[in-house]
C-alpha cells in the first residue's frame, strides 16, 4: 500500500511536471531569479514550517535545482504577522516567497493586523498536515469514544488539552471537539508542538491534537497513543510504527462519531503583483522538489497528506479555507475586537 502510494505520488508529480513541461521551459526562459531568493518562514526556528522550509532548502542545494541561493529567514513576530506583512510590503520583488501554516488565516483574524491572503500571490500547495488526537498510553481510553465519554462525565474544565499557540489551529480543533461532545476542556497553549507532546507524556495535560511528526517519537517509544485522525480518510502510510500499528490503522474521527475534519495548509505564496512567468518558475521548482526521493522520505516521516495544487484550484481552496476559518473563529469567539 505504501509503495503504491509512494509511486502514485511520484507519478502525479511527474505527470504534473510533464503537463507543465512545455510551458515551464518557456517560463524558465522568460524569468529566473537574478538574486538570492528569500524564503520567509512566519514561525520560529525548529517548528513544523521551519523544518519544511529548511528541508526544501536542503533539497534545492543538494540537487542543484536553482542557480541562485535560497535563503530561509524566520519572521515569527506577532504569530507570524511579521512575516506576512513583510511579504505584503515587498511588491514587485519576485525574490521573496513565504511558506504558510494555518496562521495565514488565524493571525489576521485573531490580532486584527492589516493582512489578508489575497495580498499575496498564491504559488502552490505543497502538502497538508494531519492532526491526530493523542492521549497518554497509560490512560484507559482505547478509542476516541472512550475519551469523549470520559470528557462528558468529568466536571467542565477538569480535562486539560495542550496545544500550540493560542487561537490557532489546535485551539480551533479543541473548540470543535467541545461542541461535538457538549463538554468543556481547559486549553493550555504552549510554544511548540514537541513541548506539547512531552507535556502529555509527563501527564501535565490529558490530551493533545499534535501533528504526526511532533508526536511520532513518543508513540514509537510507547508513551502516547493515537485515538483518531481529523481527516476524511485514514492516512495512507502502512509501515508499522509501534505495536505493529501504522499510521493507516488510526481510524478517522468521523468513524468514531466525531464529525470533525481539519487539515493544515503547507503552501507557498509569493510577493504581491507577481507575473505569470514568475509564478510558473516557482511552481516548476516545487515540482522538481516534490519529485526527489528526499521529499518523499520527508512526507513519509511526517505522515503528510500529499495533495498538490496550483493556480486557480489552489486559490479557490485557500478562499474556501478562509471562509471556514472565519466561521470557526467567529463561533469560538476568537476574533479580534476590531473585526
Amino acid at each position, binding site marked *: 500500500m505504501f509503495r503504491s502510494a509512494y509511486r502514485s505520488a511520484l507519478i502525479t508529480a511527474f505527470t504534473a511536471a510533464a503537463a507543465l513541461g512545455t510551458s515551464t521551459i518557456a517560463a524558465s526562459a522568460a524569468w529566473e531569479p537574478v538574486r538570492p531568493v528569500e524564503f520567509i518562514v512566519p514561525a520560529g526556528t525548529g517548528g513544523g514550517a521551519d523544518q519544511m522550509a529548511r528541508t526544501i532548502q536542503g533539497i534545492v542545494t543538494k540537487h542543484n535545482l536553482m542557480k541562485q*541561493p535560497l535563503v530561509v529567514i524566520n519572521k515569527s513576530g506577532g504569530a507570524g504577522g511579521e512575516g506576512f506583512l513583510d511579504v505584503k510590503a515587498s511588491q514587485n520583488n519576485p525574490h521573496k516567497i513565504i511558506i504558510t501554516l494555518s496562521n495565514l488565516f488565524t493571525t489576521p483574524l485573531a490580532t486584527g493586523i492589516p493582512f489578508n491572503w489575497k495580498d499575496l500571490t498564491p504559488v502552490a500547495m505543497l502538502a497538508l498536515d494531519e492532526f491526530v488526537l493523542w492521549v497518554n498510553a497509560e490512560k484507559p481510553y482505547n478509542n476516541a469514544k472512550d475519551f469523549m465519554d470520559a470528557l462528558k462525565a468529568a466536571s467542565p474544565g477538569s480535562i486539560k488539552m495542550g496545544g500550540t499557540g493560542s487561537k490557532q489551529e489546535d485551539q480551533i480543533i479543541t473548540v470543535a471537539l467541545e461542541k461535538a461532545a457538549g463538554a468543556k476542556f481547559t*486549553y493550555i497553549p504552549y510554544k511548540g508542538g514537541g513541548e506539547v507532546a512531552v507535556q502529555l507524556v509527563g501527564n501535565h495535560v490529558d490530551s493533545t491534537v499534535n501533528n504526526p511528526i511532533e508526536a511520532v517519537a513518543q508513540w514509537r517509544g510507547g508513551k502516547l497513543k493515537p485515538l483518531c485522525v481529523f481527516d476524511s480518510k485514514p492516512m495512507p502510510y502502512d509501515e508499522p510504527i509501534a505495536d505493529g500499528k501504522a499510521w493507516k490503522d488510526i481510524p478517522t474521527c468521523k468513524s468514531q462519531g466525531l464529525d470533525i475534519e481539519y487539515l493544515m495548509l503547507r503552501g507557498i505564496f509569493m510577493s504581491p503583483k507577481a507575473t505569470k512567468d514568475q509564478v510558473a518558475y516557482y511552481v516548476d521548482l516545487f515540482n522538481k522538489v516534490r519529485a526527489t526521493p528526499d521529499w518523499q522520505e520527508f512526507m513519509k516521516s511526517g505522515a503528510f497528506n500529499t495533495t498538490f495544487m496550483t493556480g486557480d484550484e489552489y486559490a479557490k481552496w485557500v478562499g474556501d479555507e478562509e471562509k471556514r476559518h472565519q466561521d470557526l473563529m467567529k463561533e469560538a469567539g476568537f476574533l479580534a475586537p476590531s473585526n
Partner: protein
Amino acid sequence: MTTNSPGAGPMHKTVEAGVTIAIALFGVIVIIGSVKAGINWGAEGPRAGFFPFYIGMAIVVSSAINLWNGLREDNDSLFAEWGQLRQVLSVVVPTAIYVGVMPFTGLYLASMVFIAWFMRWLGKYNWLTVAAVSIGMPVITYLIFERWFLVPLPKGPVEEWLGL
C-alpha cells in the same frame, strides 16, 4: 582628552529628575496599553493586560519615590561637563544619521562613510588608512554575511546597480 577646565555643565540632579520623569511617562504608556488589552481576570485566567498593568503601576510608583529621593538628596555634582557631553554627542549624532539613512542607502555605503568620518575626524588618520579600513570592513562583512552565511543585509541603489 578630558578638558581640564572646571567647566560648567548640567546638574546631576536635573538630569536625573528628567530621566525619572521619562521613565514614569513610559510607565503611563504601559498602563494605557494594558488597559486597551484588558486588565481583568477573564475566563482563561488573567487577560493579556493584567500583568503589564501592574508592571506599569510599579514603574510609576517607584519613579515617584526615585524622584522624591533624588530631589531631596543634597547633591551639587555635575552630570557631565559640556565638553564631555559634546564628545558623547559627536558619536550619537553621526550614529543617528548613519542609522537614519540606512534604509535608503543600504548598510554598506552608510557604513563606509560612517567609518571614514569617525576615523578621519576623531582619529585624524591619513586618508590611506581611512580608505583601507572603511572599504575593507564592508567588503569583509559582505563576504561573511551575504556570501558565506547567506544573511541578507539592507541594500540600496548602489548595490542594485552593481547587481549584488
